[in-house]
């Protein structure tokens, strides 16, 4: 029997951690709604589980999404994730080959170098020793990068890093101690008894030349076991709770549990799955333009988790989705924020009785300009022109007495009020008998898709124009204009429409590629979701975004959202800002 008292701190820590995790997760999973539990059971034994395993490998271990931010940052996270995982797995295999029993105690593999007398060779022992040293070296290189990141984060692709709580800094220190201590323990053992490979063996010989490694190695194993034990005990109360939680979350996500508008058990999983890596911080324009440093998702979630006051942060978010797009854990940051916004309007069925029942002429194509569309008559004019050019018969749903789509209300948490407005519009749209609903406003577009449950094709006008061109109904001529496209948040990131605007622009102009293309676009600052910043702050944000686009010196800045157009145009008059429909109409 292999046993030594020094394994106790490790074993105690590990056991308490496992019990704590099982109890917590079972409690959370039990609070899922009946429908969610049903979904989980239905999808548990299916290909989705395998897909989740693949995702866990790629996300939790390789951290492949972080490579998009910076290869160094990705490598650093991979060293800890994949490195530690390999250390455990290869160590376990090594111990199995040596011991040949599957049920050797968990500490046996972890402290293998201590229990294994080095002179006793077993199959491939040299290969294993080499592999284990290689993996340890990989982790130590990651650790060096992590230290370096604390000093100079920019080289690892991050302008700002997360401000951690003192408790999290403590456990970070413990985590950083684990691997150097393991290295020392293995080196000292190797120095006194032999064994190890290129790293620990050479280091052992080096240390033995000036240190009493014989008497140091045993205490070092005690230290190693203790830091592991302390790490396990502190883990549930620190940000490292993300390590186990993220894996459970990936399973739940793949089994089809969705984050809704309320804060539920899946929200709790997401709250704890946030690793506070801080990648969202640089994405947030409230930080980069306005210097607001407490509202980024990492801090927002931190405040919820540690029960600090976050009432201001609830409202202070543009919901542009830039953070969500960059989040390596794939958290639904916008919905989490929204889940905290309370419904406080006193709306009854009668509140909106003033809205007259519209009489809509029937047609195959229905057009909805939206409130913001009506604020930019140029867009409507252009759309009318294009419909006529293409010979499309259409009906204009909100030509007169048009009302809001309801999304601004939803974004402020007032779902009750929104549901009434939604019902009104829905009736009007259905009465038109249309098969295709075209809208000029990406905000309306999102709502129509997500909340209206319409059984017809919903298209944003960029998609529709792209379709008309490809069908040969519109024949725009290519102009010599240099255009830069600002993809509205709700269109690009929100609905993934990045191709059609580019196709359309290529047909009518010479689009200039920018680093803000597609899902990396900037928020114009007009966001209706932010209920906190002042108009002055909005203008500053909008100016910064505009200048970023104008640094590419376009003849025209093109967007596809009337709100973005209006917001940009409000403070700027030298470079024309046009909607994509206007550009096409001008060149038709």
């Amino acid at each position, binding site marked *: 029997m292999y046993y030594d008292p020094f394994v106790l701190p490790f074993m105690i820590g590990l056991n308490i951690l496992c019990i704590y995790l099982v109890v917590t997760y079972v409690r959370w999973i039990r609070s899922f709604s009946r429908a969610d539990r049903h979904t989980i059971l239905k999808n548990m034994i299916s290909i989705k589980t395998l897909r989740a395993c693949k995702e866990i490998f790629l996300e939790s271990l390789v951290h492949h999404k972080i490579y998009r931010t910076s290869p160094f940052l990705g490598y650093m996270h991979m060293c800890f994730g994949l490195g530690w995982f390999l250390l455990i797995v290869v160590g376990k295999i090594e111990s199995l080959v040596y011991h040949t029993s599957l049920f050797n105690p968990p500490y046996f593999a972890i402290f293998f170098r201590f229990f294994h007398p080095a002179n006793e060779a077993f199959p491939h022992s040299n290969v294993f020793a080499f592999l284990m040293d290689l993996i340890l070296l990989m982790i130590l290189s990651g650790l060096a990068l992590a230290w370096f990141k604390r000093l100079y984060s920019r080289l690892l692709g991050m302008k700002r890093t997360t401000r951690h709580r003192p408790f999290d800094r403590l456990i970070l220190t413990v985590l950083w101690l684990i691997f150097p201590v393991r290295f020392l323990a293995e080196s000292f053992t190797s120095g006194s008894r032999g064994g190890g490979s290129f790293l620990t063996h050479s280091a052992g010989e080096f240390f033995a030349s000036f240190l009493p490694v014989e008497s140091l190695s045993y205490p070092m194993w005690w230290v190693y076991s203790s830091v592991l034990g302390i790490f396990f005990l502190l883990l549930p109360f620190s940000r490292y709770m993300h390590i186990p939680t993220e894996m459970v979350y990936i399973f739940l996500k793949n089994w089809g549990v969705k984050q809704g508008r309320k804060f539920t058990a899946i929200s709790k999983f997401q709250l704890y799955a946030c690793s506070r890596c801080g990648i969202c911080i640089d994405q947030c324009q409230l930080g980069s333009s306005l210097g607001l440093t407490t509202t980024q998702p990492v801090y927002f979630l931190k405040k919820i988790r540690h029960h600090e006051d976050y009432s201001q942060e609830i409202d202070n978010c543009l919901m542009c989705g830039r953070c969500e797009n960059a989040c390596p854990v794939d958290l639904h940051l916008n919905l989490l924020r929204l889940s905290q916004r309370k419904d*406080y*309007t*006193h*709306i009854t069925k009668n*509140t*909106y009785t*003033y*809205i*007259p029942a519209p009489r809509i002429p029937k047609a195959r194509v229905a057009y909805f300009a939206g*409130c*913001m569309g*009506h*604020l930019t008559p140029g867009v409507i004019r252009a759309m009318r022109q294009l419909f006529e050019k293409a010979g499309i018969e259409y009906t204009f749903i909100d030509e007169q*007495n*048009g*009302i*809001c789509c*309801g999304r*601004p*209300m939803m974004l*402020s948490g*007032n779902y009750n*009020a929104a549901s009434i*407005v939604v019902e009104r519009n829905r009736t009007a749209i259905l009465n038109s008998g249309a098969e295709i609903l075209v809208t000029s406003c990406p905000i309306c577009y999102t709502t129509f898709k997500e909340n209206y449950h319409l059984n017809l094709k919903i298209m944003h006008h960029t998609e529709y124009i792209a379709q008309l061109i490809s069908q040969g109904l519109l024949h725009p001529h290519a102009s010599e204009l240099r255009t830069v496209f600002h993809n509205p948040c709700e269109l690009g990131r929100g609905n993934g429409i990045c191709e059609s605007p580019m196709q359309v622009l290529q047909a009518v102009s010479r689009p200039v590629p920018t680093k803000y293309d597609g899902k990396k676009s900037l928020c114009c600052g*007009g966001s*209706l979701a932010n*209920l*906190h910043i*002042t*108009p*002055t702050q909005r*203008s500053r944000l909008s100016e910064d975004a505009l200048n970023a686009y104008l640094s590419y010196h376009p003849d025209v800045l093109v967007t596809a959202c009337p*709100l973005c157009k*209006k*917001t940009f145009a*409000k403070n700027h008059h030298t470079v024309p800002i046009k909607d994509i429909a206007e550009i096409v109409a001008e060149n038709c």
Partner: protein
Amino acid sequence: MNNIWGFTISSARVIDYDKNDRSFAQYMTDTVPSSQLCIGCGGCTATCTAGALTDFNIRKLQMLVKRGENREAGEQMHKCMLCGKCLLVCPRGVDTRRMIFAMLKYIDNQKL
């Protein structure tokens, strides 16, 4: 005397500032300081989605709150659809939309 000269004094139109509760107005000034910038041009009301269909009127709403006619303001409030057009047309940079949110929250707390 009545109506000889074509004028009457209607008691219903007398606003007694001393009796009216100004706490709502004070709250609004505190939470949305930009509301004081309003020059009453009525741009917000002209563009208002709800205002096109009913007598909902942001300019008037502001006035009611400033005068302390809270009950009337409370009755009007909910007609707003929060679409945010008023915010974009305001020439003075009044945070009209946030003003509405502040009012809704106040009404929710006071049960007006």
